[in-house]
């Protein structure tokens, strides 16, 4: 089971459509401060079903839609599509390629699709249930989580153990 591709448009600083192909092996994402590297991580969390806006560094979900710059107007929608290779059947579906899409409109409306078929957020959560891959899994590690793992906050540690169990 691999990530194949992540397509981002209208999410945070991705005013133009961006396609990231994930090859096997180790991929490094580099670049100057503030250019969008962590935003890629946020986009991945979001398309996997993240509902806690604080995990995306925002205070309300609408803030994740591209809100314009000096030279560009804000956009009306954020869309992220993740394509996965399900060759080992890890995901509970008979498809060998799985594509998940999440959209959010300024109106507050959301759309979710699995292989281009509309579905509910719950269906996306169910797809990843118990695979260790959901938005809240330990697959996505921000820098402050490293400190939390060994800090005095025993609840953070416990959460990771429960994920693994």
């Amino acid at each position: 089971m691999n990530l194949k591709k992540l397509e981002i448009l209208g999410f945070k600083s991705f005013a133009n459509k961006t396609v990231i192909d994930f090859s096997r092996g180790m991929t490094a994402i580099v670049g100057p401060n503030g250019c969008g590297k962590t935003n890629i991580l946020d986009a991945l969390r979001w398309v996997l079903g993240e509902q806690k806006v604080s995990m995306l560094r925002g205070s309300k979900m609408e803030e994740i839609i591209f809100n314009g710059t000096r030279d560009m107007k804000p956009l009306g929608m954020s869309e992220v599509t993740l394509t996965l290779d399900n060759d080992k059947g890890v995901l509970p579906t008979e498809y060998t390629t799985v594509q998940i899409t999440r959209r959010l409109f300024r109106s507050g409306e959301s759309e979710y699709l699995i292989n281009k078929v509309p579905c509910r957020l719950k269906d996306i959560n169910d797809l990843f249930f118990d695979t260790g891959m959901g938005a809240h899994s330990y697959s996505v590690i921000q820098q402050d989580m490293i400190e939390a793992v060994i800090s005095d906050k025993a609840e953070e540690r416990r959460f990771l153990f429960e994920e693994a169990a």
Partner: protein
Amino acid sequence: AKELFEATFAQVKINFKKLFTELFTGGEADIFLTDPSDPLESDIEIIARPRGKKLISITMMSGGERALTAISLLFSLYMVKPSPFCILDEIDAPLDDANCRRFLKIIDTFSNQTQFILITHNKITMEASHNLYGVTMEQFGVTKLVGVKFSEFEPDNVSESTLII
């Protein structure tokens, strides 16, 4: 649920002791439940003794030692329940050159079963990656991705400033 947690915990404990000693080229560490009779609610304690030093609480360890201990614990969890992919945001920041290389060696051994994506500012991590994406902002506030390396790149030429060209 209690048995599952205890079985998981026992396995993570074994992995952690082994991985810590590997990453610290010596020394020893352990994790234990402060209240073994109540595994689902108990705090999880970590003790560690880097090579040649005396046993100290996590709080007295250095920034880099804490990060490496947290990485040992995180990967101990991954060994119990491997995740198909893993995205890590600048967790190599506090590590010195030697520890960074040891961390990357562990990543390498996991790379068969897990796709790693590392956001980093660290040149050693960049050189060790198979694939390298550069994230830039040519237009103010708009992210643009450049693919810099796909397993044939010359590591000596990589620096964050060249990616902006």
